[in-house]
């Protein structure tokens, strides 16, 4: 067998396996697993020797192939075959291969379409087609990925370590803080109990408690306890 292939020829282990199946003109539903495993491992050796980063991705399938090969060598327990659904050990792999093949084909089908800015083009310029187009300030077009990407830029620029690990728990807390501040803006003050009354789940009760602590620490609210009744009342620290 000749090993001539381009390094970037394969998109992954499944792609390599499909290549071997086609190269050997094998029926995908009846893969001679010993032969294919042998060839797969030889290619894997080359990939590894070339120190390709992705060699690791090919290892998992290699072990799957070896596992299937060993299972096929074992005699099939007579009753188990039909009763317990212990079918052909190759079945799962075939399924995966067929599925992968479908999407590989779908990808090339997509590429044959008239692709924008490759085969067909939009109007090049939108400048000056109408003068003075006012902008509606309320409408914004942006995706959540743009937001994370923006954060990444900020961190890269500032080298700020503390920003690196974003604590989602803290952000959930921010949600509750926003809500409490809103409630307090409407009702001058509230008892802690009243705030809790809004919380429906255990999680929400915890967040309410943490949010009040945080707000006190941030000096955004003030909490007072009545000496005789023990009731805690929360006020906005600064009146608007």
């Amino acid at each position, binding site marked *: 067998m000749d090993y001539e292939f381009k390094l970037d020829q394969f*998109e*992954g*282990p*499944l*792609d390599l396996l499909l290549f071997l199946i086609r190269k050997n003109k094998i029926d995908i539903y009846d893969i001679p697993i010993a032969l294919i495993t042998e060839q797969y491992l030889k290619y894997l050796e080359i990939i590894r020797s070339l120190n390709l980063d*992705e060699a690791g*991705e090919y290892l*998992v*399938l290699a072990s799957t192939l070896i596992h299937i090969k060993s299972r096929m060598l074992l005699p099939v327990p007579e009753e188990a075959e039909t009763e317990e659904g212990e079918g052909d050990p190759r079945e799962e792999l075939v*399924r*995966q291969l*067929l*599925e*992968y*093949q*479908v*999407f*590989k*084909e*779908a*990808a*090339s*089908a*997509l*590429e044959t*379409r*008239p*692709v*924008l*800015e*490759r*085969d*067909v*083009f*939009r*109007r090049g310029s*939108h400048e000056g*087609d*109408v003068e003075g187009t006012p902008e509606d300030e309320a409408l914004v077009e942006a*995706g*959540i*990925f743009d937001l994370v*990407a923006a954060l990444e830029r900020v961190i890269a620029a500032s080298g700020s370590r503390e920003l690196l690990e974003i604590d989602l728990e803290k952000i959930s807390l921010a949600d509750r803080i926003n809500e409490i501040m809103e409630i307090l803006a409407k009702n001058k003050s509230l008892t802690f109990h009243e705030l809790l009354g809004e919380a429906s789940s255990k999680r929400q009760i915890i967040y309410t408690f943490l949010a009040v602590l945080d707000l006190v620490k941030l000096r955004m609210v003030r909490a007072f306890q009545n000496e005789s009744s023990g009731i805690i009342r929360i006020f906005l620290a600064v009146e608007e």
Partner: protein
Amino acid sequence: MEGLKAVVEALIFASESPLNVDKMADVLEDVDRKDIRDVLSQLVEEYRRETRGFWIVEVAGGYHFRTKNEWSPWIKKMKRGKPSTLTPAVMETLAVIAYRQPVLKAEIDKVRGVDTGGAIKKLLEKKLVRIVGRKDVPGKPIIYGTTQRFLEVFNLRDLSELPTLRELKELQE
């Protein structure tokens, strides 16, 4: 309305993204939707029939002007800059997302048999794919789907226009 055809033509032309009938009706308050649809199909047909540089295509849920395929060699030459093409790995990832959406990264990885993080990032950057939300299971994994731009770039009216996956059906039988 006098000149309705020309106005509709002007609106599609001036719009930066495909324009749908709803939006046109919004702008042309007193005009009947039926009349808008009538001039639309007249326009589409005229541009299709005549030997012109561009025509009106139905894409991403609306109507938009696009150059006709046959002139692409000259336009490419004019634009010189090479269009950024997607690598096969990125295209495969896009295909899985397009057909399987809403889909999790773990599912895409499984189909392709490799880690698809880099490809997903590329698709997010190109705005062909977006974060749809998070799945309500432990770990709250991110759910991906395609964008309006995906439809525009691959000249699809909507997702139902994606070529059907014939072989996959066979597999499911």
